[in-house]
């Protein structure tokens, strides 16, 4: 018998707000523990939550970017559970009236375009960070109460590849929209994954297993694949899958039981009496909609259609918003899109990765790159010299023209200098000369290389070729 898996994701995304969801404490990753705290986020007696409107804006914008319907009336609920990571021992969240409803993500998975649908997005508050040491647990409440969205997909995926493509797309859209940095290492994007397996053709879904709280794509992939295999083997051997919550142990590459259905929490949701329902006015939604940035897919299509870039280039440039924005700033100063693209994909990305930097930190500004390209196009410098100028500015800063002068990188088209280098190359390399004369046209490239070398890259390649041919064909 053949089996198929059904997968759904609950993805938690920490929003980019300056302050926490229900108090005015600052959001800062990596700060000294327990300095960004107050009576509200520490759950002191008498403290009350006040809604962060920026978080609501970001959640609505996330919903718009993911094609959700924005709920004109949403409300807050308390989710009750006892754990030291939740100061009040209840979490303020949205149970039956979330901020965003429906939605979808269309993404390419292994060459095929697929659309994954969403159930909802709701707003909630983050938990504190627990660290377990020998004999004690330490709680850092800096993260407690920060704004957290939960993006809930429908059970509409069938493989780890689907889930990863979906998550990558969501991540890209969140980053593009300025909703979240989605830095998984900082816990800004975490997913719970629901996996079930059923025989192909069976209508009802198999028993659902939830794998909790994973932040790495690699672990999510491993956990899903492990879980599909485990459940399939179980059913094939005549057993049945138990509905439960499992964790993933990356060291052993296995999932393990955390909580069975019988021991499942009863969260006793009820409406949060300390907060009023959220009603976002239609005009406000329109305002926010008008502020949304262009998303990667339409941007990619535009680069191909309007700028004539290859699909590959357009994909690389739009992979993250900062790069695409940088590219477009350069395009304000040049018409040579392919040259800009080549520099970004080549020199820029190499140097950024070598020096572990991000594009906004580059000393080569979009304006300076446009200037370098203009100098190449005007044949003032060769492409190779252009790359040297780029690297010099990247490392040291400075102006392209000054660097060309200082390093003597201007192209030489002057006949007398070329004449000397050409004669020298011909005299020193009798063998290629002979071969060329015998009809092997390609041999001239070796001589050409010698001239370029002698000129330290400054010779104008067109002029060199012309001069060599002149001399050899004579």
């Amino acid at each position, binding site marked *: 018998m053949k089996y198929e898996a059904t997968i759904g994701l609950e993805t938690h995304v920490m929003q980019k707000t300056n302050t926490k969801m229900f108090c005015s404490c600052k959001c800062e990753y990596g700060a000294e523990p327990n300095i960004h705290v107050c*009576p509200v986020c*520490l*759950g*002191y*007696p*008498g*403290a*009350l*939550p*006040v*809604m962060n409107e920026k978080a609501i804006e970001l959640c609505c914008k996330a919903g718009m970017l993911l094609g959700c319907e924005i709920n004109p009336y949403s409300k807050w609920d*308390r989710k*009750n559970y*006892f*754990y*030291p990571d939740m*100061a*009040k*021992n*209840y979490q303020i969240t949205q149970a039956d009236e979330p901020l965003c409803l429906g939605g979808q993500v269309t993404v390419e998975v292994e060459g095929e375009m697929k659309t994954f649908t969403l159930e909802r997005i709701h707003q909630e508050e983050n938990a504190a960070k627990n660290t377990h040491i020998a004999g004690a*647990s330490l*709680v850092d409440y800096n993260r407690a109460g920060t704004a957290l969205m939960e993006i809930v997909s429908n059970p509409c995926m069938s493989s780890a590849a689907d889930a990863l493509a979906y998550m990558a797309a969501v991540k890209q859209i969140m980053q593009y929209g300025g909703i979240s940095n989605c830095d998984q290492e900082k816990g800004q994007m975490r997913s719970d994954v629901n996996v079930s397996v059923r025989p192909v053709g069976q209508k009802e879904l198999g028993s659902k297993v939830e794998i909790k709280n994973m932040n790495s794509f690699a672990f999510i992939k491993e956990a899903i694949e492990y879980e599909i295999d485990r459940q399939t083997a179980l059913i094939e051997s005549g057993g049945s899958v138990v509905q439960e919550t499992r964790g993933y142990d990356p060291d052993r590459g296995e999932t393990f039981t955390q909580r069975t259905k019988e021991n499942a929490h*009863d969260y*006793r*949701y*009820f409406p949060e*009496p*300390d*907060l*009023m329902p959220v009603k976002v006015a239609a005009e406000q939604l329109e305002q926010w909609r008008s502020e949304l940035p262009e998303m990667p897919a339409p941007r990619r299509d535009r680069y191909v259609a309007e700028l004539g870039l290859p699909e590959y280039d357009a994909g690389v440039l739009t992979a993250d918003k900062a790069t695409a924005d940088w590219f477009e700033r350069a395009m304000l100063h040049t018409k040579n899109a392919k040259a800009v693209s080549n520099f970004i994909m080549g020199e820029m990305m190499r140097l950024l990765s070598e020096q572990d930097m991000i594009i906004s930190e580059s000393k080569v500004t979009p304006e300076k790159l446009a200037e370098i390209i203009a100098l190449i196009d005007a044949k003032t410098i060769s492409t190779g010299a252009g790359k040297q100028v780029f690297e010099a500015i990247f490392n040291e800063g400075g102006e392209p023209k000054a660097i060309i002068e200082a390093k003597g990188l201007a192209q030489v088209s002057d006949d007398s200098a070329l004449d000397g280098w050409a004669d020298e190359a011909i005299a020193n390399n009798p063998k290629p000369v002979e071969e060329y004369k015998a009809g092997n046209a390609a041999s001239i490239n070796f001589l050409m290389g010698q001239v370029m070398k002698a000129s330290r890259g400054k010779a104008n390649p067109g002029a060199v070729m012309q001069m060599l041919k002149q001399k050899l064909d004579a």
Partner: protein
Amino acid sequence: MADLHKLTISELTEQLASGTCTSVDIVNDVLASIDATDGKVGAYLTIDREDALAQAKAADEARAAGSQLPMLGIPVAIKDLLNVKGQPCTCSSKILEGYIAPYDATVIAKLREAGAVLLGRVNMDEFAMGSSTENAALGKTSNPWNLDHVPGGSSGGSAACVAADEAIASLGSDTGGSIRQPAAFCGCVGVKPTYGRVSRYGLTAFASSLDQIGPLTKTVKDSAILLEVLCGHDKMDSSSIEMDVPAFAKNLSNGTSLAGMKLGLPKEYFVVGMDPEVEQSVRDAVEHCKSLGAEIIDVSLPNAKYAIAVYYIIATAEASANLARFDGIRYGMRIDGKDPIELYGKTRAAGFGSEVKRRIILGTYVLSSGYYDAYYLRAQKVRTLIRDDFTEAFKQCDAILSPVTPTPAYKLGEKSDDPLKMYLDDILTTPINLAGNCALSLPCGFASNGMPIGLQIIGDAFQEETILKVGHAFEQTTEWHKKRPSL
């Protein structure tokens, strides 16, 4: 001793303004009164004398410099569930022993801005859960009119200290009657403002959708003065309403006529089992209002009979979550365990009293999966019906008159082992909290055993001015509020 502690806010403010006394004099008199009688009454949990006198001195200096703040130099006692920076805030619970509040509740900040002297912290039922202050873990409070009787609750200390002239005024909180009922039992005036009028920020929550802070005073006029200071929008409390605060005190005319005013009498509020002396006093009070020119009409609050059931579902549900934070992790009592769950269990088992535990368990139950619809959801629907009753009634009248409690203050221990019996005493006060409107309690007579009887004047939402006006007219033309207990 100049007996300044026996005076009212308005009387003392006149004396302070004319220079015949100072705030330090007042505080000294009040402290002396506490020394003389609080051993018997037991209203106070903590008093910081030095701090109170320092505040009084500062108030006197401010007055000398020209300040005329509304509460300048007047000492006020604080119910022990309001956070005052640097002071304990135990809610009369062992679980909060050792907790020192790191911030001021909004009403405390407002009192400070108005120049009041924060005098000390008074006893209450643990976490405001109770009607007799017998559920207090950290003190025992008696009714100043008869020390064998309960002061009412949960703001029992707040009412007892005012009635015993151990404070000029006090703050209480009212979730199901916790200001009005002890005011009635102790023969003073108490106001439960409209939900949203007074910020709850810094009030240790019992039931968030019902709690309101309000004044307990010797006269209606004093309540008006204090209420005006307490009211107003607060951005720290999302349930507080953005609405101008009327000049409650100034708008109280000296006229005693109620001509043109329609007062409703709800037939459902004169319940079977009501003490005949209470019923008679209230009916006499109604006649008195009629004699002042009010038209008395019958109104109906048909769903009031469900109020107790609804109240004990909604209040306990909210409380079960509100009190979850008292877990021994961040402040207060902690009894260690092998893991957090055991720590919680041990701490909460030792820290909470039995009434608090009973309500947490009840609240947890009504929210549990499988029971939520039958209890909590249904209670919310009936709550709407109760609110609709008042809306209908206030289409016909300006205010509603009723008893506050079915009986006068009963004896200590009389009902403490029968929670259900005690819950039923809230029948006349809880509907107002559920509906969210306002009400005040003021003295309207005495039972033959000498215990005070209270009249409840219920107003529509944000109609505090109306009930203060009726109460003031009643008070101006009666003598009940002038009687003091002999201690």
